[in-house]
């Protein structure tokens, strides 16, 4: 496979011929501000190019907003436990920043990456919710989104489960079993510890990366101010010296622009990938929580089944009329327990695969980010060196005259 070509935008190569390998490629573009006042929001065009049979091909365009993406992710998280669902960019906390060009661009880029990751994941791409998201018209999408908003959206069986969970928690506390049951295989412990500590390290690096962007902007600004001031000083001096000052001022201002450009490049191609990495790790933590839940359910149900079995044997010995009823209950519970166990085992298996994939992908992602970082810095430094160097002969000429 073309693993080495796998980049942030996923499998986006166009087919060699229409009947060849199935592909699904998505772009998120053209942010547009809609609505008024407090209810204003940004909508994006989502273009899907595909040759998959279930999709309306070859191309379909829909309009989506941020909350639609959130819906998709929530659905995927529900349906595909064990898989590391790609992260979404955060909701904006600060009101006035919400519509700044930079924020919108960063968000658009992140959403594009999100959808493409989903589309290139061998399991996730088969999701019906994904298809709905990519293909349905706006009203259908809105209806789907609205349904999710219902607070007790869970099915009755799930409600029972929630109730049971609460019961179990209470009885645990009452019985003095404070700690919920947790798996503790050494490999899994190591992985959990790794993930939690990784988040800390990455957050720190991302914080400094963000600050570095700011420093570039500040340096750019002060170079611009400095250049202007030097030019004014040049106006006080005559002839050669005045010209020298004025040239220096001009160079300084030109470099200011280059710094602003590099600041933006650094933000989009280094800081954002780092932030994305942090989000991905947080997503893994959520999956870890899901796994813990599944494990607990599996344990508890297994316990309950054992108890039920003992009870059933007792009833059979005493030839009670309740045997039939108990037997049915027992069988149901057994099935449930087996389901829970299966769920847990699936999650475990998936997570192992996902972890391997994740590490591979991150090495590529970070490699690219580092490359962009180094490239940007090298270019900037070269530009700076060239700009200043070009002044030297002029200054030489001044002093000899």
């Amino acid at each position, binding site marked *: 496979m073309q693993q080495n070509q796998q980049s942030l935008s996923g499998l986006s190569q166009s087919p060699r011929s229409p009947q060849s390998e199935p592909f699904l490629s998505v772009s998120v573009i053209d942010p547009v501000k809609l609505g008024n006042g407090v209810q204003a929001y940004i909508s994006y065009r989502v273009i899907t190019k595909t040759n998959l049979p279930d999709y309306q091909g070859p191309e379909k365009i829909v309009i989506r907003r941020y909350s639609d993406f959130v819906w998709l992710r929530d659905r995927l998280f529900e349906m595909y436990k064990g898989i590391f669902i790609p992260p979404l960019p955060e909701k904006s906390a600060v009101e006035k920043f919400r519509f700044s060009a930079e924020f919108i661009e960063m968000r658009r880029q992140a959403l594009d990456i999100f959808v493409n990751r989903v589309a290139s994941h061998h399991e996730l791409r088969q999701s019906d919710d994904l298809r709905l998201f990519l293909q349905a018209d706006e009203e259908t999408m809105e209806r789907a989104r609205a349904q999710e908003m219902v607070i007790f959206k869970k099915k009755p069986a799930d409600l029972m489960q929630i109730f049971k969970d609460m019961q179990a928690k209470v009885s645990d506390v009452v019985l003095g079993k404070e700690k919920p049951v947790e798996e503790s295989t050494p490999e899994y412990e190591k992985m959990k510890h790794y993930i939690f500590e990784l988040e800390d390290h990455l957050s*720190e690096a991302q914080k400094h990366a963000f600050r570095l962007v700011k420093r*570039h902007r500040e340096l750019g600004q002060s170079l611009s101010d400095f250049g202007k001031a030097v030019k004014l000083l040049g106006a006080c001096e005559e002839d050669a010296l005045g010209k020298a000052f004025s040239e220096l001022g001009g160079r300084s201002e030109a470099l200011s622009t280059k710094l602003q450009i590099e600041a933006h490049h650094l933000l989009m191609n280094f800081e954002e990938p780092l932030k994305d990495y942090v989000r991905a790790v947080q997503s893994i933590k959520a999956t870890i929580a899901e796994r813990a839940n599944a494990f607990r359910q599996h344990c508890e149900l297994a316990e309950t089944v054992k108890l039920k079995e003992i009870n059933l044997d007792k009833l059979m010995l005493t030839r009670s009329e309740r045997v039939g009823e108990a037997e049915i209950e027992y069988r149901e519970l057994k099935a449930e327990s087996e389901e829970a166990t299966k769920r847990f085992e699936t999650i475990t298996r998936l997570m192992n695969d996902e972890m391997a994939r994740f590490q591979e992908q991150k090495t590529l992602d970070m*490699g690219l980010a580092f490359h962009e970082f180094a490239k940007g*810095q*090298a270019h900037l430094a070269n530009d700076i060196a060239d700009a*200043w160097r070009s002044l030297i002969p002029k*200054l030489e000429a001044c002093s000899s005259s």
Partner: protein
Amino acid sequence: MMGYDHEQEAKEEESHLYASPEEMETLVLEDHPSSTDHPANLAASSFSALSRHPLSPPPEIFTTTDSVDKSDAYSFAPLSPSLSHHREQRSPNSSFNSFLEPPSYADAMFRSFDGEPSEVDGHDHSELSNSEYIHISVSDPHKVVETSNSLVPGGSYYYTYLITTRTNVAEFEGTDFGVRRRFSDVVTLADRLAEAYRGFFIPLRPDKNVVESQMMQKNEFVEQRRVAIEKYMRKLANHPTIRKSDELRMFLQVEGKLPLLKSMDMASRMLDGAVKLPKQLMGDPAAVVLLDEVVQPAKGGRDLLRIFKELKQSVSNDWGSSKPLIVEEDREFMERKEKLQDLEQQLSNVSQQAESLVKAQQNMGETMGELGLAFVKLTKFETDEAVYECQRARALDMKNVATVAVKASRLYRELNAQTVKHLDKLHDYLGMMLAIDNAFADRSSALLTVQTLVSELSSLQSRIEKLEVASSKIFGGDRSRMRKIEELNKTLKVTEDAKCCAVREYERIKENNRSELDRLDKERHTDFLNMLKGFVVNQAGYAEKMATVWKKVAEETSCYARGLS
């Protein structure tokens, strides 16, 4: 009799003193900014405070970075103000020729300080005629406890500093010598120079810093003062006229008590003046102007009457209906003065922006370093916890980036230290603006003296005329009036002599102003050009180094790049 006081005193008694600006606060005849409040000084002090910020690059930098050539055996101490103590004289142009060698200025920047003339003491920009030099250094502060009449038991003390000079100037008897001086000696030297060299751009002496000294730790304060005195001495040695002065020579060479007359404080001067005033007002014939005094400004002197007269004259200049009889008519001077004011403003502006630039560079370096360290930690973490092979690969990439980021951070710090040094020239010139203000003030006050004497003369003449007319009307003459006329004529003669003296003094000061302005223009031209060169070479050199190290990492990670670009 109105007139200037005749002073018969012998040499022992102090002559008129030139008041430094801060002492004139109670008797300001013109708008004169106190030197401690001048924005230039504020900027300069915060600027140099910045340069003393933990920016000093550790000397071990040069052994750890591989991008440094082995040829850079130059030992690097960029922040020390006493950097070039024993630097021999070098022609300012020779090292700049080496800058024309393409392509790398990375090495050149370390040599850029060789040719800086201002680094070397006693050097001047143009008159390197006999390769004369005067190297001065100030060191070794000693605390001396004052034993006599201190009200506080064991309380009063002062510091003395060792002032060592190395010179080949013939006027000094000897080539290496040292004396101990205290700060008040420096003040005395400054005052005597100000009197003797009216019209010259005399470097400003270090501040007295009374309030600040209470706030600081003693050794901090003493060190700051030591540095300030040293800078001042070097500036004096750098001035082509002042370096030849007797006052400076005596200060540098004569052991024991400084043989210069001490400056008197304001109160005593006023007191003396108050004593003389009644005699002057009574028209004591002896109370006529002494020619010596005419060549000093009225302000800060002891002749209260003269101060009042000149004050009156200046008010009439500003508000009177008729123009004074002699005015500043040197058009060229006025133009140059205006240009200088403009220059000062722009210099101040640039120096402020330069400070921001330095801060921004510093921040950049710090953040880059922090980022590098964060990645170093991450690298260690990934390596320790690696389960998959790709983690090790990632850790390696990360390590390369982290190493370069830390290197770049150090480069920024060095760059900054050099930038501060270069742009410090701006502060020197801002400081000089104050000296120029003083020189122009000398001129104005000399002019004011002339104007006052001229109106004095004309009023005397009109009085004489009136008396003559009145007396001629009386047959046989009017004895008392005749006597009065005789007295007035005497006063007239003395006043005329004084006026001639004052005019000569005024012309002398004008000439000093002019020659100094020429010198300033020339030196400034050279200094600023060197400053620009230094700055630019510095920036180019460091940028080159950074480009090199980043390029390497970019190449190492190029396998991750998309096939597009």
